[in-house]
C-alpha cells in the first residue's frame, strides 16, 4: 500500500511515486497533443468570421423563422422517397447480411480459415465507409436518384447487421443444436430448427434498429444527389431559401423522433 511519510506518521496514498509520475507524464503528453491539434485547427480558421458568428447566426435565424409552411406540399413525395430508401435499403441489406453473418460466425462457418476472414473483411469494409460516401460512389456509377440511395443504404448496412447477427449466432445455446442434431437432422434442418429460432428475436431487433438508423441517414443522402428529402434541403440551401430550410429541418427532426419511437416500441415488444 503506497503511503506518504509525514511528521505525524504515514498517510494513505492512492498511488506510489512511480505510478503518479507516469500518470502525470501521460497527461502532459496528451495535453500537448491536444494543444498541437487545436493550434492546427486555429491556423486553418479565419477568426474574423468566427467573431462575426453571433450576428450571422442571428441573421440566419431571423430569415429562417417563421418556416414556410405552404412548402410542405412539395415535400410529400420526397418524404415517401426517403421512407422507401430506408426501408428497401434495410430489406436489401438484411438479405445480403444473413449469409455473411452465417459465414462469419465461428460455429456456423464452413471454413474458419478461408471463408471467415472474407466474411469479416466484407463486414469491416462496408461498415467503415459512411453511407454518404457510398452514395457518392454509386451516383458516379449508376447515376443520381432513389435507386442509388437504396443501394448506398443497403451496402452500408450489411456490415452493421452482419456483425450484430454473427455475434448473436455465436452466443446461441449449443445444447439445442445438439438435440436437433441427435434426432438425425441434416445440416440445413439443424440450421432451420436449432439455430434460426434462437437468433430470430435478435434478428428482428437488429432489423428494426438499423431501419431507425437508416431513416436518419436517408434524410441526408439527397445532399449528394441520392434522392429523398435531402435533395430539397440541398436545393433550398443553394438558393438561400432559409424559411424552406427550417421547415425541412423540422420535418427531418420529426421523422427521426418518430422512427426512434417506433423502433423502441417494436424492440420493446420483441424482447
Amino acid at each position, binding site marked *: 500500500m503506497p503511503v506518504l511519510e509525514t511528521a505525524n506518521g504515514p498517510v494513505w496514498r492512492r498511488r506510489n511515486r512511480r505510478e503518479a509520475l507516469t500518470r502525470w507524464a501521460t497527461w502532459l503528453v*496528451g495535453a500537448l*497533443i*491536444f494543444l498541437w*491539434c*487545436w493550434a*492546427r*485547427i*486555429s491556423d*486553418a*480558421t*479565419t477568426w474574423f*468570421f*468566427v467573431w462575426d*458568428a453571433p450576428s*450571422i*447566426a442571428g441573421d*440566419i435565424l431571423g430569415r429562417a423563422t417563421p418556416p414556410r409552411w405552404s412548402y410542405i406540399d412539395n415535400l410529400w413525395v420526397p418524404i*415517401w*422517397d426517403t*421512407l*422507401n430508401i430506408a*426501408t*428497401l435499403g434495410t*430489406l436489401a441489406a438484411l438479405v445480403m447480411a444473413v449469409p455473411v453473418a452465417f459465414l462469419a460466425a465461428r460455429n456456423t462457418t464452413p471454413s474458419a480459415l478461408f471463408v471467415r476472414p472474407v466474411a469479416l473483411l466484407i463486414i*469491416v*469494409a462496408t461498415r*467503415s*465507409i*459512411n453511407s*454518404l*460516401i457510398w452514395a*457518392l*460512389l454509386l451516383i*458516379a*456509377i*449508376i*447515376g443520381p*436518384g*432513389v*435507386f442509388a440511395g*437504396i443501394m448506398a443504404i443497403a451496402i452500408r448496412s450489411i456490415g452493421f447487421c452482419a456483425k450484430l447477427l454473427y455475434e448473436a449466432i455465436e452466443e446461441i445455446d449449443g445444447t439445442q443444436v445438439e438435440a436437433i442434431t441427435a434426432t438425425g437432422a441434416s445440416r440445413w434442418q439443424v440450421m432451420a*430448427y436449432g439455430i434460426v*429460432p434462437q437468433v*430470430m*428475436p435478435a434478428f*428482428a431487433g437488429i432489423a428494426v434498429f438499423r431501419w431507425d438508423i437508416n431513416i*436518419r*441517414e436517408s*434524410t*441526408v443522402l439527397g*445532399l*449528394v444527389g441520392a434522392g429523398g428529402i435531402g435533395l430539397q434541403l440541398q436545393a433550398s*440551401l443553394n438558393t438561400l431559401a432559409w424559411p424552406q430550410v427550417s421547415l425541412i*429541418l423540422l420535418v*427531418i*427532426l420529426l421523422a*427521426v*423522433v418518430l422512427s426512434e419511437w417506433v423502433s423502441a416500441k417494436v424492440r420493446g415488444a420483441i424482447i
Partner: protein
Amino acid sequence: MTAALPPDATHRELDDILGTRWRRPPLVRRAWLRWALIVGGLLYLVAAIASVEVNWARVYEGLDRGAAFVMAFTRPDFVTRADAIWDGMLESIVMTVASSVVGIAISIPIALGAARNIAPLPVYMVCRGIIAVSRALQEIIVAILLVAIFGFGPLAGFLTLSFATIGFLSKLLAEDIESMDRSQAEAVRATGARWGQWIDYGVKPQVIPRLIGLSIYRVDINFRESAILGLVGAGGIGATLNTAFDRYEYDTAAAILLLIIVIVMALEYVSGIVRARVQ
C-alpha cells in the same frame, strides 16, 4: 394439497396437444396481428417498389465505370495526389483528436447531471434536454449550419463532432452511472466525504472502465464521421475524396477509401485491446 385434484388435471394442456402434429411456434403469436403485418408489409412493398424509378439503361452504362472503380482498388494511387491526401488525412485526425477531447470533457459533467441518482430533478431535466437535442440532430446537418455560421474549415467540423460526442457519450455514461452499485457510493459518503470526494472515490471507480471504452469507441466514430464532413465544407479528408470522385480519379479515391478502412480497422483493434484491459 395436490391429492384433492383429479390426477390428470395438470396434464390437460398437454392432452390437447397430444396427437396433433407439431408446428413451429410463430414469431408473432397473435394471428390477426401476424396477418395484418404480413398483408400490410406486402402492400407497402408493392407500392414502394412501384414508385422507385430505375433507369436501367443508365445503370447498364454505369457498370463499366463500376468495374473501373473496382479495378482501381487493385492498383490504388497514393502518389499523384499525395499532398492533398496527406493534408486531408492529417486534418481529419486533428479534428478527431481535438473534438473527442473537448466532447468527452464536456460530456462528463453533463452525464453526472443526467443521472437521476446523483442530480436533482431540475438539473436532470436540463441535461437530458441537451442530450436529446444533440442526438436528434445529425452530424451532417449540424455541419451545414455551422459552416454557414463559422465559415469553411476544420473549426466547423471540430464543433460538429464535439457536439455529437456530447449526446452520445453523456447518454451512455449517464445510464451506466444510474445502474451503478449504490452501497459502494454510500460507504464512501458514510466516511464523511465531501460531494467532490464522493464522486471521485464512490462513483468514478465504478464507471471509469465504461467511460474509457465508450471514449475510444467515440474516437472511432468521430474519425469515420470526419471523413464525410468535408462534403459540406467542414474540413477533413472528405473534401479530397469528393474532388477525386468529381474528377473521376477512381484510383485516388480508392487509395483514400483504403486508408480510411485501414485506420478504422486499426482503431477498432486498439479499442478492442484497451476495452479488454480495462474491463
